[in-house]
C-alpha cells in the first residue's frame, strides 16, 4: 500500500476510534448513536440469522438491473446522439443541468403509474444513472484520436470492425468512468427510493428500524450499505487503476 493509502487508513481508523470513545464515554447519547463496535456486532448477528437475506438479494438485484439498463441504454443513446450532431446540440444543455434537477420528485408519479413494486425503483435508478453513462459515452467518442480512423482505412477495416477493434477500446476508459458513476448513482437512487417507499429491500429495512427506534438494527444496516458501496467502488477503482497503469494515464 502507498504512503497516502496508509495515512488514509489511519484517518479512518482514528475517526472510528474517536466515535467509539465518544459513544462509550457518553459524549454522544446512546439513543442517538451506538458505538461502531456494537454496529458491527449487530450486523454480524443479522447476517448470521439470515433474516435479511431476501432484502439484501432484492436490493442488490434491483441495483444490478438498474446499472445494466443504464449502461446498455446510456451507451446506445450516447452512440445515437453522437452520430446526430444537431440532436446533440439541442440536448447538451439538458445534460449539463440534469444533475441540478431533483429527479426524485418523479418517484411518486412512477409509483402512481406502476404501483408499489420494483419497477418504480428500477426506473429511479435508471433515471439517476443513465445520463452519467450518456455523457461518458459522448466524452469517450469525442476523444477517440482521429488518426485511428485513418489507421482503420489503411488496414481496410469496415465500420463495424473499426468500431469494435479500434474505437471501442480507445473510448473504453471514458466508458468505464460512466459505468463507475452509473453504479454509484444507481446505488444511491435505489436505497433512497426503498427508504422513501417500497414493499421491501435494504432501504426499507433501514426505514422500518428507524421508525421502530431500533438503533442497533438501523446502524447495523447502514454499516452494511456503506461496506457494500465501499467494496464495489474499491473493486471498480482497482480495475480502473490497472487499466490506467497500462495506458500510462491517471485513473478517472
Amino acid at each position: 500500500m502507498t504512503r497516502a493509502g496508509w495515512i488514509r487508513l489511519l484517518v479512518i481508523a482514528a475517526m472510528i476510534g474517536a466515535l467509539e470513545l465518544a459513544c462509550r464515554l457518553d459524549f454522544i447519547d446512546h439513543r442517538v448513536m451506538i458505538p461502531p463496535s456494537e454496529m458491527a456486532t449487530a450486523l454480524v448477528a443479522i447476517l448470521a440469522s439470515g433474516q435479511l437475506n431476501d432484502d439484501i438479494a432484492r436490493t442488490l438485484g434491483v441495483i444490478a438491473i438498474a446499472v445494466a439498463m443504464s449502461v446498455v441504454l446510456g451507451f446506445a443513446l450516447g452512440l445515437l446522439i453522437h452520430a446526430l450532431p444537431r440532436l446533440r446540440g439541442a440536448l447538451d444543455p439538458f445534460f449539463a443541468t440534469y444533475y441540478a434537477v431533483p429527479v426524485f420528485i418523479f418517484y411518486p408519479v412512477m409509483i402512481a403509474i406502476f404501483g408499489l413494486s420494483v419497477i418504480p425503483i428500477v426506473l429511479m435508478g435508471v433515471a439517476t444513472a443513465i445520463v452519467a453513462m450518456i455523457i461518458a459515452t459522448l466524452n469517450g467518442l469525442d476523444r477517440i484520436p482521429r488518426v485511428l480512423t485513418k489507421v482503420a482505412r489503411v488496414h481496410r477495416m469496415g465500420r463495424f470492425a473499426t468500431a469494435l477493434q479500434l474505437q471501442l477500446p480507445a473510448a473504453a476508459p471514458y466508458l468505464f468512468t460512466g459505468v463507475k458513476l452509473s453504479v454509484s448513482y444507481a446505488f444511491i437512487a435505489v436505497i433512497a427510493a426503498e427508504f422513501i417507499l417500497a414493499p421491501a429491500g435494504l432501504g426499507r429495512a433501514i426505514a422500518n428500524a428507524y421508525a421502530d427506534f431500533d438503533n442497533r438494527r438501523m446502524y447495523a444496516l447502514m454499516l452494511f450499505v456503506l461496506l457494500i458501496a465501499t467494496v464495489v467502488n474499491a473493486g471498480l477503482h482497482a480495475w480502473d487503476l490497472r487499466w490506467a497503469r497500462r495506458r500510462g494515464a491517471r485513473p478517472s
Partner: protein
Amino acid sequence: MYGDIHAQFAGVTRVYAGTGGHSPVHALGPIDVNLHKGEFFAVVGPSGCGKSTFLEVLAGLQQPTAGAVTFEGRAVTGEVPDGIGVVFQEDASFPWLTVWDNAAFGLQRKGTAPSEVRRRVDDALAFMGLKDFARAYPSQLSGGMRQRVCIARTLVLQPRLILLDEPFGALDAQTRLLMGDEVLRLWRQTGATVLLITHALDEATMLADRIGAMSARPGRFIEIIETGWPRQRDSTIVAEPTFGEITGRLWERLRGESLKALGHSDMPPPALAAE
C-alpha cells in the same frame, strides 16, 4: 538512375468543398510527378501547403478532385491499395495492446497463420530495436519508441510503398536524426519506395534521393531537387558541405512560400517546375 515508375500523379488537384458559407479551399495542385521504384522521395513546404493532402491522395485516403493517381499501374480510387503502408505524425499506437500485439494487428486482421505472424512480428521488432519491449505497453515507451512501434506495425505487412507523414514531427532533434538512420536502414533493407512528408528541410536533405519543394497553398512542386547521395548513407552526411548547399537551396526556394503562408504576399511567385 531510377527504376520504373511506382506511383504517378497526373494533373492531380484537391479542392475541399466550402462549408457553412465558406468558399471552397483549393488545397493541392495541379501536381504531375512520378515516384520511382525504390527511391526515397521527400516533400517539403510551408505549413498548410497541402503536403499531407498529397500523401493522403496517394494513399487513397482522399479522392483527388481532378486528375489521376496510380500505384503500380492501377488507379488509386478511394481505398488504400494493397502494398501501401502509412505511418502518421500523430501517435497511432494502440495503448490497450502490447508492443507485440500492436505490431501483429494488421497481420492478425488479415488472417495470416500464427507461425507466420510470430516470425514477421519478431523480425520487425528486432529490426526496430523493440525486441526487449515486446510485452510493454506504448505508455511505457518514449515518443520515438512509440513511433517505431507504428513503423513496425507497417513493416510487418511488407509494403512496397511506405508513406511517412511527418513521423518525427513530435521528436527532439537528436532523436529525429537517429530515427532518420533507422528509416534509411529500413528503406535499404526492404527495397521499398519511401515518400516522406516533412517540414524539416535538413531531415529531407539527409534522407531523400529527391526532394519536392512545394509552394504555399495550393501546393504545387516549385522545384524537385536531386540530392545525389549514395544509397549507403546515414546521419553523418549532415557534416558534409553538400548537405548545407542542398538545405540552403531548399530554403532559398521556400522562403518566399513560407512568407506567403504566413500572410506576406509581397514576394514574387516562383516559376513552376516541370519534372
